[in-house]
C-alpha cells in the first residue's frame, strides 16, 4: 500500500474511533431503556391474553350450560332414551348444534364416555373418546384446556380447546361437552389485541396455531436493523401455560414487538450510523488531501530517480517543498546536475582517447608501407647513381614494391574511410532464406574438405534489413569461418525464429577462439590475423546495431565458433506494403 493511502487510512481511523466508541454506550443505554419499557408492555399483553382466555373459558361454560338446558337438548335426550331417535339421526345432531351455538368442539357422550354424537369429529360416534374422557371426569361447569382431534380439510388434526361439560336432562346420564378452539382465528384475534405474535402450542411443543399482528410484517428497514443490533425486542416472549401446573395441556406464547420503541431505537441507530458513514467519507477525503500534499515531493523524487536510473540525467524535481524534504529535493537536483557534467567530461575524454588511438593506429598502419617505399626509392637512387648495369631490373623490382605498398596504403585508407562513413541502412523486408541463399550463392564450390549445411526453419517472417549491408556482414562471417577451417570442416548456416526476431547463425568446426580474445573480438583494430585491419567484425557489429539487431559469438577452443545475428522481424503491414510496392529500378 502506498504511503499516501496509508496516511489517508490512518487519518480516517483517527476520526472514526471516537464516533464508534460513543456508539457502544449509547446503544447499551438505549437497549436498557427499551427493555424496561418492553417488559412492561409484555406484561400487559400477557395479562390481556390471560384475561381473554378466562373470558373464552367462561363463554364455553355458558354456551354449554345454555345448550344443555335447551328444549332441543331435552328432546334429544328423551327421544334417544325412548328409542325414537335413531343412532344415525343422533350422530348427525352434534354438528348442527355446534354450528348453531358457535362452538368449535361439541360431543354428547354416555356416562361411560361413549360418544353419541360429535360435531368436531363426527366419525367418532359409537366410540369411547379418549380425548374427552378426562374432561368428562372433571367437575361440570368448569372449562379445561384440552388437545382434541378435529376433522379438518386435510384430515383429522390436533386442536387446543377450552372445553366444559354439563349433564343433559333425563335419566340417560348423557353429558354434553363443548368448547372453543384456540385456533388460527382466535390466535389472530389475540395477536391483534396484543399487537404482537401469538403462538398456540400443544404440550409436546407442536405449534397448533400462530398469528402475528399485521404491523410487524411491514417493519421498516431501520427497525429491523435495530433488532439485528440487539436494540430490538422481537425475541422477548412469555408463555402462558394452560391446564394443571403439573401437566399442562398446552401453552399460549405471547411475543410483543413494541413497534414504536423499536422504531425510535432504529432512528437513533440510523443517526449514529449515518454520522459514522459521513465521518468515514470525510476523513478519507481530508486524509487523502493532506497525504497528497505531504507525499507529492516524495513521489516526484521517486519518479525522477527512476528516470536517472534509466539513463536520463536531465531529470529534475520541480515544485515546492519545504523542510527536510525540500533539502532532499535540492540535493537530488544538484546530484543529477553533477552526474550530467561528469558524463559529458567523460565522453569528451573518451573521444580524445579514441582519436589518439585512431591516429596511433593510422600512423602505425601507414608507417609500415612507408619504410619499404623509402628503401626502394633509396635503392633506385643508389643504383642510378652507381650506373649499375642491372638498373633496369632494380628499377622494375623497386617500382613494383613501391606500387604494392601504395596499394596497401590505399586499402588501409579505404577501410578507415568505410568504417567512418558507413551509410545509414535502408531497411526493407527480406526473407531470411533469401539472405542465406544469396550468401551461399557466392560460394558455388566450397573449398576442398568443407561441407556446407543449410537449415532454415519453415514459415519464418521476413526481417527488416538493408539487404546489401546484411549480405556484407554475413559474407564477412562466412569468410572468417572458411579461413578458420583450412583443413576442412563443416560450415553451417541456419535461420530460426526467436519471438519478434529472426536469428541467423554462421557456425564452423574450426579450432575456436581463445577465451581471452572473445571480449575484444568486436573492438576496432583488434585482430589476430596477419595483415588484418581488425575492422571487419567491428563493422559487422555496427551494421547489426544500426539494424536494431544484435551480433554475438559463442566459441570454445576445439569446439568451433558460432556467430549469431538477430534481426527484428518485419511487421505484417510492412511486408504487405513491400510486396505491393513496385520494384526499385
Amino acid at each position, binding site marked *: 500500500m502506498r504511503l499516501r493511502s496509508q496516511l489517508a487510512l490512518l487519518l480516517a481511523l483517527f476520526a472514526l474511533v471516537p464516533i464508534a466508541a460513543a456508539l457502544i454506550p449509547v446503544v447499551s443505554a438505549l437497549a436498557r431503556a427499551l427493555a424496561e419499557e418492553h417488559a412492561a408492555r409484555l406484561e400487559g399483553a400477557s395479562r390481556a391474553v390471560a384475561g381473554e382466555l378466562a373470558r373464552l373459558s367462561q363463554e364455553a361454560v355458558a354456551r354449554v350450560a345454555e345448550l344443555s338446558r335447551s328444549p332441543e337438548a331435552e328432546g334429544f335426550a328423551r327421544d334417544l332414551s325412548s328409542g325414537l331417535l335413531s*343412532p344415525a339421526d343422533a350422530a348427525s345432531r352434534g354438528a348442527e348444534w355446534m354450528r348453531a351455538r358457535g362452538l368449535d368442539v361439541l360431543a354428547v357422550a354416555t356416562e361411560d364416555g361413549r360418544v353419541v354424537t360429535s360435531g368436531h369429529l363426527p366419525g367418532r*360416534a359409537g366410540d369411547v373418546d379418549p380425548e374427552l374422557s378426562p374432561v368428562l371426569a372433571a367437575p361440570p361447569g368448569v372449562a379445561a384446556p384440552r388437545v382434541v382431534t378435529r376433522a379438518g380439510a386435510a384430515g383429522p388434526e390436533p386442536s387446543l380447546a377450552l372445553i366444559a361439560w354439563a349433564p343433559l336432562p333425563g335419566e340417560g346420564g348423557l353429558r354434553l361437552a363443548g368448547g372453543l378452539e384456540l385456533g388460527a382465528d382466535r390466535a389472530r384475534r389475540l395477536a391483534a389485541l396484543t399487537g404482537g405474535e401469538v403462538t398456540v402450542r400443544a404440550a409436546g411443543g407442536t405449534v397448533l396455531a400462530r398469528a402475528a399482528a399485521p404491523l410487524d410484517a411491514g417493519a421498516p428497514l431501520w427497525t429491523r436493523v435495530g433488532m439485528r443490533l440487539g436494540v430490538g425486542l422481537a425475541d422477548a416472549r412469555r408463555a402462558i401455560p394452560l391446564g394443571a401446573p403439573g401437566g399442562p395441556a398446552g401453552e399460549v406464547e405471547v411475543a410483543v414487538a413494541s413497534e414504536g420503541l423499536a422504531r425510535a431505537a432504529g432512528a437513533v441507530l440510523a443517526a449514529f450510523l449515518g454520522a459514522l458513514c459521513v465521518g468515514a467519507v470525510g476523513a478519507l477525503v481530508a486524509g487523502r488531501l493532506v497525504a497528497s500534499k505531504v507525499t507529492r515531493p516524495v513521489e516526484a523524487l521517486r519518479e525522477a530517480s527512476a528516470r536517472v536510473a534509466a539513463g536520463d540525467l536531465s531529470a529534475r524535481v520541480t515544485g515546492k517543498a519545504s523542510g527536510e524534504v525540500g533539502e532532499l529535493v535540492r540535493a537530488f537536483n544538484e546530484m543529477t546536475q553533477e552526474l550530467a557534467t561528469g558524463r559529458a567530461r567523460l565522453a569528451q575524454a573518451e573521444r580524445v582517447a579514441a582519436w589518439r588511438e585512431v591516429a596511433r593506429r593510422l600512423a602505425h598502419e601507414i608507417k609500415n608501407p612507408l619504410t619499404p617505399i623509402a628503401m626502394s626509392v633509396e635503392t633506385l637512387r643508389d643504383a642510378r647513381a652507381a650506373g649499375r648495369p642491372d638498373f633496369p631490373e632494380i628499377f622494375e623490382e623497386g617500382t613494383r614494391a613501391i606500387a604494392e605498398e601504395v596499394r596497401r596504403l590505399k586499402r588501409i585508407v579505404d577501410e578507415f574511410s568505410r568504417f567512418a562513413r558507413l551509410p545509414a541502412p535502408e531497411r526493407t523486408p527480406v526473407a531470411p532464406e533469401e539472405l542465406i541463399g544469396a550468401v551461399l550463392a557466392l560460394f558455388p564450390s566450397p573449398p576442398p574438405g568443407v561441407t556446407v549445411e543449410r537449415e532454415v526453419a519453415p514459415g519464418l517472417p521476413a526481417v527488416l534489413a538493408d539487404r546489401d549491408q546484411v549480405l556484407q556482414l554475413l559474407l564477412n562471417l562466412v569468410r572468417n569461418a572458411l579461413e578458420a577451417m583450412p583443413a576442412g570442416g563443416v560450415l553451417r548456416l541456419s535461420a530460426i525464429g526467436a519471438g519478434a526476431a529472426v536469428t541467423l547463425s554462421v557456425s564452423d568446426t574450426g579450432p575456436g577462439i581463445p577465451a581471452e580474445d572473445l571480449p575484444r573480438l568486436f573492438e576496432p583494430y583488434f585482430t589476430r590475423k596477419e595483415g588484418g585491419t581488425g575492422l571487419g567484425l567491428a563493422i559487422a557489429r555496427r551494421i547489426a546495431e544500426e539494424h536494431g539487431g544484435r551480433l554475438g559469438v559463442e566459441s570454445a577452443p576445439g569446439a568451433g565458433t558460432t556467430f549469431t545475428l538477430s534481426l527484428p522481424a518485419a511487421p505484417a503491414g510492412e511486408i504487405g506494403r513491400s510486396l505491393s510496392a513496385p520494384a526499385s529500378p
Partner: protein
Amino acid sequence: MSAAPRLLPAALALLLTLPGTARAGVRPAYGGEIRVQLPAPPRIADPAQAVDPADVLLVRAVHATPLTIDEAGHLAPGLLEEVPVAAAGGRAFRLRLRAGLRFADGSPLAAPDLAASLTRLLSRDAPNAWVALPVLGADAFLAGRAATLAGVQVLSDRELLVTLAFPLPEWPYALATPAASVISPRGGGAGPFQLQSLDAAGARLLPNPLHWRGRPFADRLTLSGAEARASARALSRGEVDLVLRPEAASPLATPTPALLATVAAVNGRRLGAGAEPVRRLLDSLDRAELGQRFARGPSAPLACLVPPALLPPPGPAEAAGAPGAAPARLVLLASSAAPDQRAVAERIQVRLFDAGVRAALELEEPARFAARLAAEDYDVALVPVPVQPLAPALAAGQVVLAVRGSDAARRAMAALSGPGGLEPAAAGEQARALGRALDLWPLFATGARASTGPALEGLRVGVDGGIDPGDLWRRRGEAQ
C-alpha cells in the same frame, strides 16, 4: 335352478302390507290428489338416466316396464303379453308385446320402441346401461364399432328377439326395472301417469287413461321434496299423503328393502404397497354397526357385491394379502349429494386415523364426483350405487358398472351367471372374489322408510323396493 328364483319366494316377507291393504273389504276409489314428499324433488324422467330415488319414482309414474314383479315376487307380464322363456341355454328371449298398446300421447307402442329403448341405455355415461350390457354386440355398440345392437332383432310390430352375449337366464328380471321402461321417440311414456310439469318445486302428473292396466285411481299425483322435519310436520298436518325418505316421518313408518349400496373402491395403483393396510381396514369394518349408526335409513351389511336378499352372505373371509406399510396420508373421495355418504366417510376417516393414516375427506357434487371416479382421481372412494335386488348377476353388474365401467360389469355379470346358475354358497364366494379382484369393498345397503297419511291406500312395496304410483288411491271422503 338359479339362485334368484329360489330366493325370491323367500323375499315375500319383504312384501309390505301397509295400512291401505290391511283394510280388507274397502273398495278402491277414484279421484283426488296423491301428494308424495321425497328428500329432494325429482329432476329426471328419463329411464336411462334416473338413479336417484325421487327420479326413479317419477320414472315409475310416467313410464311402463315390459315386465313387473307380482305380489309373490315373481315376474309378471307388463307391457309384454307374457314372461319370456329362456332359450338357447339362457341366451335368447323372444319378447311379445300386448296388442293395442299406446303411449300417453296416443301414439302406438310397438316392438321397435322397445328395441330403441333398450339400445339407448348403452352409452358411456349412462348409469343404467347394465340392463343392456349382456345383449350381444353391446360392447361393439359402446365402442362405436357397430351402429346397431346386434342382439336385438325386431321380428314384427309386437315381437322382438333378444340374444345375449353369454348365458344369463335371469336377464328378464332386468326388464322389470324402471331402467327398462319403454320410452317413445318424443320422450313420452306409457305409465299410469303423464307429466304435466316438472320444475324445481317438483313434478305434477295427470292420469294416463291409455295405460295398459287402465286409468290410475288418483286424478293428480304430486312429487315434491323437503327436509326430514318439514316432511314429518307436513304428514302430521295431512298436507302430504306419503313420505318416502330414510328417516321415519311418522311412528308407523315402514322400511323398504335396501336399495342403495355403499361400496368402497380402493385405487391400488395410486396407493401402491400402502393399499394393503387400507384393504385390511376396510375388510375389518363392522358393516352392521356402520350402517346402523351412520345410515339414517334401514340398512343391511354387505359381505359381497350381491345384496344378502339374493345370496346368503359368504363365510368369514381370510385376511387379504401380505401386510404393508400404511400410507401416511390419503384422499378419501365421497359424494356430497348423499348425507349418509358423508357420515360413513367421516367414520372411515376416524378409523383410518386410529390406524395412523390421515385421510383428507373430499366431498364432490355428483357430476364432479363421477368425473373423478372415472379418472381414478382418489385413493379410496365411497360410491353410492342403486341396486335392484332381483338377481345376483344383475346386482353385481350394477355395482361394478358404477365403479369400474362397462367392460368390468360385463365380465362380472358373466362370472356370476350360467345356464344352470351357481349354488348360493359358491355364488357368494364368487361374488366376494370378484369384489376383491376389482378392489371393491361393499359396506352396506340402505333403504328408505315409507310414512303414510291416514287417507292413503293401495301402497305396495315390492321386493325390488319399487312403488307403483298407479296403485295408490285416496279413501273417499278424506279431506285433502
